[in-house]
């Protein structure tokens, strides 16, 4: 009878494709929106994600996220260095700076000042230039979208200059980074240089990046730093979550995306559920005939669930495929750069589809189960 179910399902090609594409479209909506949401949240934590060589972030306990920090003082740095279990600790400067190019155009940029000696926190992937050149006077490394923003497309040329706070800056390298939440250019320079590029303040130490001694648990060391210095210390993953949580809790982004995803879910359910429900409804007469001929209710449940599963699987495959293709083909679009389809999102979308399909088949099943087989004799 499974074969009969399959035939019933695929016999009317138009209806079959309509149902499958209904599901596929729902999956596309849900997974694409969720992936963009995850991508955006990831972007808010770009700085913590991109620093791979230090496992501990220390900041003022009043800092709300990675962009609104109260600067530390140099003595804080030394106190962190003095904490038992800390192998090393270095400075990190992070703020916004206005960068101007020769034609007078200027852009708000994210300025990162990394430790002069160790270059801890330097970009990992350079597409042009070399990290060592960052030690040269006025040297900066800029991220690729930033370079494009200032100097357009075309081959990358090193040696271009910008001006920040009346200081000249020379591009010695172009790098790939995790794109930031606001699509500002990201500029790396040495800490001492960064102080010149930014308007003067009394304290300018945004973060201390530290690392635990070999064999120690970073979580434990963070605990020690907290208790001994009173500063906020977090492991890199905790720092990433700290920032993301800030955006989740204090911006409208999650709510808006939540609404979009819910709409996607509802529209997906409506389309997929509706088409599948209508499909069953239109076949009610056939199910009635089968019932009269001695197909048990359990068998009918099995047939409908099989049809639902087939529609669900094919629709899911198509939908998630479309999402993957979408992100694959937009990899070079700055606004969508770094967005991808996390497996968790694919999993959630699968769960959503399963739910949609189960709901749709339950409603359809009800109709079929209460169907009096005697209706087959009615016109």
């Amino acid at each position: 009878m499974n074969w009969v179910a399959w035939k019933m399902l695929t016999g009317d090609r138009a209806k079959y494709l309509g149902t499958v594409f209904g599901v596929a479209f729902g999956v596309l909506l849900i997974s694409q929106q969720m992936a963009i949401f995850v991508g955006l949240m990831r972007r808010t934590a770009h700085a913590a994600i991109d620093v791979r060589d230090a496992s501990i972030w220390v900041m003022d306990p009043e800092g709300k996220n990675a962009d609104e920090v109260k600067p530390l003082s140099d003595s804080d740095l030394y106190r962190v260095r003095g904490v038992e279990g800390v192998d090393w600790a270095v400075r990190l400067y992070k703020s916004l700076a206005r960068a101007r190019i020769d034609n007078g155009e200027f852009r708000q940029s994210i300025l990162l000042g990394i430790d002069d000696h160790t270059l801890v926190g330097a970009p990992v992937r350079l597409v042009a230039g070399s990290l060592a050149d960052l030690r040269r006077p006025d040297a900066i490394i800029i991220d690729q979208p930033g370079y494009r923003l200032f100097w357009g497309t075309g081959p990358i040329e090193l040696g271009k200059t910008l001006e920040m706070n009346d200081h000249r800056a020379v591009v010695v390298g172009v790098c790939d980074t995790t794109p930031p939440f606001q699509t500002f250019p990201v500029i790396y320079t040495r800490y001492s240089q960064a102080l010149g590029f930014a308007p003067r303040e009394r304290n300018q130490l945004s973060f201390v990046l530290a690392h635990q001694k070999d064999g120690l648990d970073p979580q434990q060391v963070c605990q020690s730093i907290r208790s001994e210095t009173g500063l906020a210390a977090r492991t890199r993953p905790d720092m990433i979550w700290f920032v993301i949580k800030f955006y989740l809790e204090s911006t409208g982004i999650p709510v808006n995306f939540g609404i979009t995803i819910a709409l996607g879910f509802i529209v997906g359910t409506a389309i997929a559920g509706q088409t599948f429900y209508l499909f069953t409804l239109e076949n009610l007469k056939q199910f009635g005939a089968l019932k009269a001929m001695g197909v048990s209710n359990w068998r009918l449940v099995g047939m409908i669930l099989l049809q639902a599963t087939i529609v669900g699987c094919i629709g899911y495959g198509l939908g998630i495929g479309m999402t993957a293709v979408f992100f694959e083909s937009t990899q070079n679009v700055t606004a969508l750069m770094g967005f991808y389809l996390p497996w968790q999102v694919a999993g959630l979308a699968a769960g959503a589809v399963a739910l949609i399909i189960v709901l749709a088949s339950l409603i359809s099943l009800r109709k079929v189960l209460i169907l009096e087989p005697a209706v087959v004799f009615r016109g």
Partner: protein
Amino acid sequence: MMLQSATIDTPAAAPVLSANEICVSCQSVVKEFGDGDSRIRVLHGIDANIHGSELTLLVGPSGCGKTTLISIIAGLLYPTNGDVILFGTPQSQLQGSRLVQFRAENVGFVFQQYNLLPSLTAAENVAIPLLIQGQSRPKALLKAREVLDAVGLGSRLNQLPSQLSGGQQQRVAIARALVHEPRLLVCDEPTAALDGHSGQVVMDLLKRVAVQAGRAVIVVTHDSRVLTYGDRILEMADGRMADADSTQKSHNL
């Protein structure tokens, strides 16, 4: 039993009626629909017997309860009161899944609207009752072809219902109703949607192929043109058997 054995060419050598055993016996069958104030009694205590090896016609004005009665006989509806003895087994003893299984094994259906699955070919449609019984698809299809041959559609095996005429679809439906060799064949107005000639072909087929030793065939009809096919005619009026036992007729009357 082989279907071919039934193709006895009987223009009408009136069978010895009393020799045919009673297959189905309705005993004071009452059927009511609805609840409370809207409760209506459709069958008012029907007593009737359906004999094997015969074609029994059930006739009567529209709304008198014919469809309701055969639905009960075929085990699609339960009577409100009374019982139906099916081949010696009281229906009241066949509850739920046992009744479903009884239908699957012992009852064939022919509907006015054919009710073929539109996306299955003729042969596949005919194979369904065998698939329901759990036979393998190749075996079921093989048997289906044989039976389609017997109803004269051996050349239409792989056509979809939409590619067949109404009369041909009804013949496919008859083949489907017979493929699992049921002991009871129930047909509700099988010729109502057909033109005169196709109706004759269908009735002829029921008479030649369906009627077999030990099988009861009951046909509900409005169609006065087919009355001659009945070995026995049961007449209903207003939820009652009109003159129940004396309506036996031989068609050469």
